[in-house]
C-alpha cells in the first residue's frame, strides 16, 4: 500500500492550506478521513430514522390524545402487543401472505426466465413484455386489478362467465380465502418480473459447455436443470427471495387498496396494521412497536434462511 509511505515528491504545493492538506495526505489517517463524509450521510439517512423509530416504540405518542404527552413508557407497548389478538392474527396472515406470494413469484419467475433464455430478437421483445408489470407502481397495479376483478363490472368475471367457468359474477374479495388468493395472485403478477430478471441474468452467466458436457455424459434436460442450472442459480435465488420477502413484509399498499385488511381481519398483515395504527388511529408509539417487531422477525428470518440454504447445499 502506498499509504503512509513518503513518495519523495510533493503532490500539492500551492498555499499554506494546500501544504497542510498535502502533508495530511501522506499520513495513515488520510483514507479514514476520506470516508467520513459518506459515513455521515449514511448515519443521517439510515441510522437516525431507524433509531428514532425504535425509541418511538418505548414512548407515548398519540396525536388524538395530546394530554398523554410523549413520555417514556418502557415496554408497555410490547406488553400490549402480547395481549393483542389482532397482532397475532396479522402475524399469521403476514406469514401466509408472504409465503404464498413469494413462492408463486419465484415459480413464475423461474418458468418465464427459462422460457426467455434463448437467443434472437424475438426473445428480447418478449423479455420487455414480461417485465411490463414491474414497471407499474404498486398503487396503479392494485387499482387496475381491483377494477378488473370488480364484483359488478369487472372484466374478469365477464370473461369467466362467458367461458362457462362460473355461473354468475363472483365478489372475489368478499370471502377470506378467495380474498387472500386474489390478492396473492395480483401481487405475484406484479412482482414476478423481479425474479425473471435476476434469474435470467443468472442463466446467461452459466457457461454453455457445462450443458454440452452434461449432454455427452447422457443427462437429459431435467437432469441438467437439477444438476447444473439449479446449483448455479442458488445464490441468486437465495438473494432474490430475501429481498422480496423483506419488501413484501414491509409494504402494505397493495392490500390496503384491494382489501383494506378485510373481510374481517382476514388479510390484515403486520405492515398494514402498523400503517393503520399510525395513520388512522394516530398512535405512533404502538405503530413503532409493531415495526420493531417486524424488523426483528425479518432479521431472524434472514439468519435462519441463510443457514438452511447453506445446509441444503451440502
Amino acid at each position, binding site marked *: 500500500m502506498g499509504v503512509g509511505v513518503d513518495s519523495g515528491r510533493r503532490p500539492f504545493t500551492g498555499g499554506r492550506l494546500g501544504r497542510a492538506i498535502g502533508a495530511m495526505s501522506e499520513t495513515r489517517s488520510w483514507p479514514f478521513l476520506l470516508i467520513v463524509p459518506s459515513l455521515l450521510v449514511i448515519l443521517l439517512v439510515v441510522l437516525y430514522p431507524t433509531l428514532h423509530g425504535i425509541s418511538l416504540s418505548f414512548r407515548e405518542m398519540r396525536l388524538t390524545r395530546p394530554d398523554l404527552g410523549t413520555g417514556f413508557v418502557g415496554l408497555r407497548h410490547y406488553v400490549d402487543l402480547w395481549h393483542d389478538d389482532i397482532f397475532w392474527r396479522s402475524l399469521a396472515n403476514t406469514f401466509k401472505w408472504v409465503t404464498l406470494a413469494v413462492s408463486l413469484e419465484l415459480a413464475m419467475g423461474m418458468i418465464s426466465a427459462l422460457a426467455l433464455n434463448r437467443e434472437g430478437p424475438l426473445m428480447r421483445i418478449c423479455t420487455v413484455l414480461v417485465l411490463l408489470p414491474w414497471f407499474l407502481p404498486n398503487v396503479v397495479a392494485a387499482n387496475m386489478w381491483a377494477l378488473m376483478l370488480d364484483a359488478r363490472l369487472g372484466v374478469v368475471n365477464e370473461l369467466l362467465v362467458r367461458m362457462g367457468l362460473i355461473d354468475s359474477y363472483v365478489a372475489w374479495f368478499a370471502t377470506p380465502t378467495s380474498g387472500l388468493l386474489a390478492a396473492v395472485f395480483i401481487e405475484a403478477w406484479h412482482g414476478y418480473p423481479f425474479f425473471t430478471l435476476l434469474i435470467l441474468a443468472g442463466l446467461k452467466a452459466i*457457461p454453455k*459447455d*457445462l450443458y*454440452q*458436457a*452434461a*449432454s*455427452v*455424459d*447422457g*443427462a437429459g434436460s431435467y*437432469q441438467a436443470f437439477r*444438476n*447444473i442450472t439449479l*446449483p*448455479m442459480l*442458488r445464490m441468486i435465488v437465495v438473494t432474490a427471495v430475501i429481498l422480496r420477502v423483506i419488501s413484501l413484509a414491509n409494504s402494505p399498499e397493495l392490500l390496503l387498496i384491494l382489501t383494506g385488511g378485510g373481510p374481517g381481519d382476514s388479510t390484515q398483515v403486520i405492515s398494514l396494521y402498523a400503517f393503520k395504527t399510525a395513520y388512522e388511529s394516530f398512535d405512533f408509539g404502538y405503530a413503532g412497536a409493531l415495526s420493531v417487531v417486524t424488523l426483528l422477525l425479518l432479521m431472524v428470518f434472514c439468519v435462519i434462511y441463510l443457514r438452511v440454504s447453506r445446509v441444503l*447445499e451440502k
Partner: protein
Amino acid sequence: MNALAIRNIQKSFGALKVLNGIDLTLEEGGFLVLLGPSGCGKSTLLSIIAGLEDASAGSIEIGGREATGLHPRDRDIAMVFQSYALYPSMQVERNMGFGLEMRGAGVDERKEKVGAAADLLGIGALLERKPAQLSGGQRQRVAMGRAIVRKPRLFLLDEPLSNLDAKLRTKMRGEIKKLHQSLGASIVYVTHDQVEAMTLATKVAVMRGGTIEQIGAPMTIYREPDNLFVAGFIGAPPMNFVRGRIVEGGGFAPDGGGDRITMPAMEHRLEPGREIVLGVRPENLRPIPPGVSPEGLLRFNAVPDVIEPMGADTMVHFRVGQSELIARLDGQTEVSGSAPMELGCEASALHLFDATTEQRLRPA
C-alpha cells in the same frame, strides 16, 4: 475397423461457411490431431463429431456404426473441453462418475470405476474436493478422469492443455501420451500447437479455412509437406522460404537480388525461368568448412545478422535476397558475427514449391 470415419462434412453458420467438405478416417487405437490456426474450424468439427452441433451435410461413423444424427449420449464418446467444464457444484468424485450415474450405474460400480481412473491419474486424494478448490493442472486431470471413467469408443479433446503454463503443458503432454498407450483408446485431439501434434499424433490433419490441407503421419507431413502452408506450420523454428527463379545452368536466383545459389543436381527437371519457392528447414543447414566444395549440396553464402546461442543449438539469422533465414547449428559450432560463412543443405532435405500454386513440386 475404423474408430471414426467422416465423409464430406460441411457446416455453415448462416452465410458463413466454416467447413467445406471434410473427409477423414481414424483407425482403431489411433491418435488423430486436428491442427490449424485459430478459426479454421477445428472445434466446430469436433462438436459435429460429438453431436453437439449438426453438420449441414455429410455423414459420420463411429466405431463402424452410423452416428449421423445420434444424440451425443448415444455416440459412445467422451469429451474433454478446453475450459474443462467441470460441474462446479459437484465434488470431484461425482463429477467423474456423472456419466455413469446418468447411465444408471449403481453406487458401488461408480465408486470402483472412479477409484480406478483416479488412481491412474494420481488424483485419488482429491475426490472430496469441489472444482473451485483445485489447481489448473488438477482440474485438467479431473477432466481427463471424467472422460476415461466410462471407457468410451472415442475420446474427443479440444485443446486440453492450452490453459496450462508451459512447464505443466509439457508434463501433461507426456501423461496424455502414456495414457493413450496404456488405454489403447482412439483419440481425436484439437490443437494449434504443432509440437503437441508432432509428439502425440499417429496421424495429423492440418486444417486451414475449413479444409484439410494435408493428412498423414506426423513425420510424413514434416518430411514432405504438400504445400507452403503446411510446410510453414509444422516445425519450430519454421521452415525457411526463399522466392526466386531457376536460371540457365541449374542455379537459383533469389528475388530482390543477392548471390546466385548453386543448386545440387536433382531429379526435378525444372526449366530455366520457372518461379519457385525454395524451402529449407533450419535444422537441415550446416556449415561448410572454408576451402571444401562438396558435391550435392545447396550452398548459401551467409553473413550472420544475429547469433543466438541456446546451449545445445545455436540459431544463426542471415539474409538471402529479401528473405530472413534461420539456421539451427550444433551448439559446438564456432560462429562469429559478421564473418561470412558458407551453409549447406543436402539435396534430399530440400523442398521445392511452385510460386503460384504453392504446391509441392514432385520429381517428374
